[in-house]
C-alpha cells in the first residue's frame, strides 16, 4: 500500500457489489464462509441476478487465501445453481435463492415452536437443542448430497 492511501479508500473500486470477509476464528472452513456470504448477500438483496462476483484473483489478493479455495466456493455455488461462470468475463449471479412462500413459512414456524416446547419439556436446554439441531442438519444434508442410503432414522442414538 503506497504511503498516504487508506485501505478503505479502495471501497467500490472493484467491479463487484460485494467484497468478501473472513472470520478466521469461526471454525467454518474458508470456502464455506465465502459460500454463505454470497447466499446471505442474495437473501438480503445486496446481490441480484446479473451482478458480478469478485474475481478469484482479487479475492486472493485481498484475503490472502488459496485460489483453489475460491474456486471451490464458486463451484459449490454453481452446483447450487446460484451462479454461472462466463469464460473471459467473470462469475455472475444466475438466480436468487428460492423463496419460500409466506403461508408455508408461517406453517414451518408454528410446527417449530411446537417442537421447541416439547424439547423444553423433555429437559433439553438451549445448547442441547442447538447441538441436536446442528447434528441432524449436518446428517440431513450429508445424506441428501448422495451418500449411501440411510439406516433407520437413529431413534436409538444417545445424546450427551
Amino acid at each position: 500500500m503506497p504511503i498516504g492511501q487508506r485501505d478503505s479508500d479502495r471501497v467500490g473500486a472493484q467491479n463487484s457489489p460485494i467484497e468478501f470477509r473472513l472470520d478466521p476464528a469461526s471454525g467454518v472452513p474458508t470456502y464455506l464462509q465465502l459460500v454463505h456470504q454470497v447466499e446471505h448477500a442474495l437473501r438480503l438483496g445486496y446481490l441480484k441476478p446479473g451482478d458480478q462476483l469478485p474475481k478469484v484473483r482479487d479475492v486472493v489478493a485481498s484475503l490472502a487465501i488459496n485460489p483453489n479455495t475460491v474456486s471451490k466456493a464458486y463451484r459449490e455455488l454453481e452446483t447450487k445453481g446460484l451462479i454461472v461462470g462466463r469464460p473471459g468475463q467473470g462469475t455472475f449471479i444466475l438466480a436468487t435463492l428460492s423463496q419460500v412462500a409466506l403461508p408455508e413459512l408461517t406453517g414451518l414456524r408454528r410446527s417449530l415452536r411446537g417442537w421447541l416446547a416439547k424439547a423444553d419439556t423433555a429437559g433439553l436446554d438451549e445448547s442441547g437443542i442447538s447441538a441436536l439441531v446442528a447434528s441432524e442438519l449436518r446428517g440431513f444434508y450429508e445424506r441428501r448430497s448422495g451418500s449411501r442410503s440411510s439406516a433407520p432414522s437413529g431413534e436409538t442414538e444417545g445424546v450427551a
Partner: protein
Amino acid sequence: MNIIETHSLGKSYGTTKALHDCNLAIPEGHVAALVGPNGAGKSTLLNLAVGLAAPTSGELSVLGGYRAGSLPALDGIGFVAQDTPLYKNLSAADMLHLTRNLNRHFDQAYAEARLAELGIPQKRKAGKLSGGQQAQLALTLALARRPRLLVLDEPVAMLDPIARHDFMATVLTAATDDGVSVLLSSHVLAELERVADYLIMMSLGRIQVAGEVDDLLAGHRVLTGPTAEAGRYDERTVVHVRGGDAQAHLLVRSTADDPVPRGWEAHPVGLEELALAYLREPGAAALPGPVPSWDADPAEMTR
C-alpha cells in the same frame, strides 16, 4: 507433472541422519505447506529441493524430472530463505541488477512496478528497509525470475501481521495469475487452512503426512465417546487421543462412510486441529488409505 518428487530420499551430515527414506510426489499448481517441529528436517528438505545440498541416498527430482541444482532446476525455482537474506549494503535497484545478471529470465518492468507499488525507494539500501519491506523485496526478486516453483523457508516468521498478510497475498496472487507452484515451510498453523491446499508434515526426519488438504480432511475425523471404550479402537488408525475420565476424543483416520459405533459421535476435523494432533504424535503417520476397525459386532454400529 510433479513439481517435486522424491523416492527414498535420505540425507546425512556425517553420522547424523537428517532425512530418512522420504517419499513425496507433490503435484504442480498447488500451494504446499511443510509443517513440523524444529529439527524435523524441513530446512534440509528445502535445501535439497533448491540444490543447496545433495542427497546422500535416494532420488529427488524437481519441475517434472530435473535434478535439483541442475541449470534448468536453478532457472525454474525461486527461493526465499529464512531471514530473507539480502545484501544489506546494496540498494534495492542494485539487488534488481544483481538478480538480473545472475539469471536467464528477469522481468525488470514487473520488479520495478512492484517496488513502486510497495513504496520501496529504489535507491535505499536493503539493510535500511523494514522487515516487511525486506521480505517483499526478496519475494519480488524471486517472482521477477518467473519461476515455476517458489520455495519459501519460514518466510513470515519475523513479520508483523500486516506485513505477513501482504507477503502471503503476493505469493498467492502469483500462484493465481501465473500458476506458480508454492512450497512453504511454516509454523503458523492458524493460517494453513486459508493458504495451503497440500500438506506435508514431517517429524524426526520422516514424512508423517503428505496429501491434498481436502483428501486429508475427508480422511480424518474426531470421534467423541466414553473413555472406557476408547481402547477398543484400532491403534493403527488412531492419531491422537485426548480426554478425561469419562469422555474422550479420538482423532482417527476414517471417512464419513465409515460407521460410527453406538454411543459415539463423529465430528469433522479442521486443518489446524489435524496438524496439531500429528505434531503431538511424532510417531504417527498417515498410511495410504484409512483402515478402520472396531472389535464389536456390526449390530452395534449405527449411522
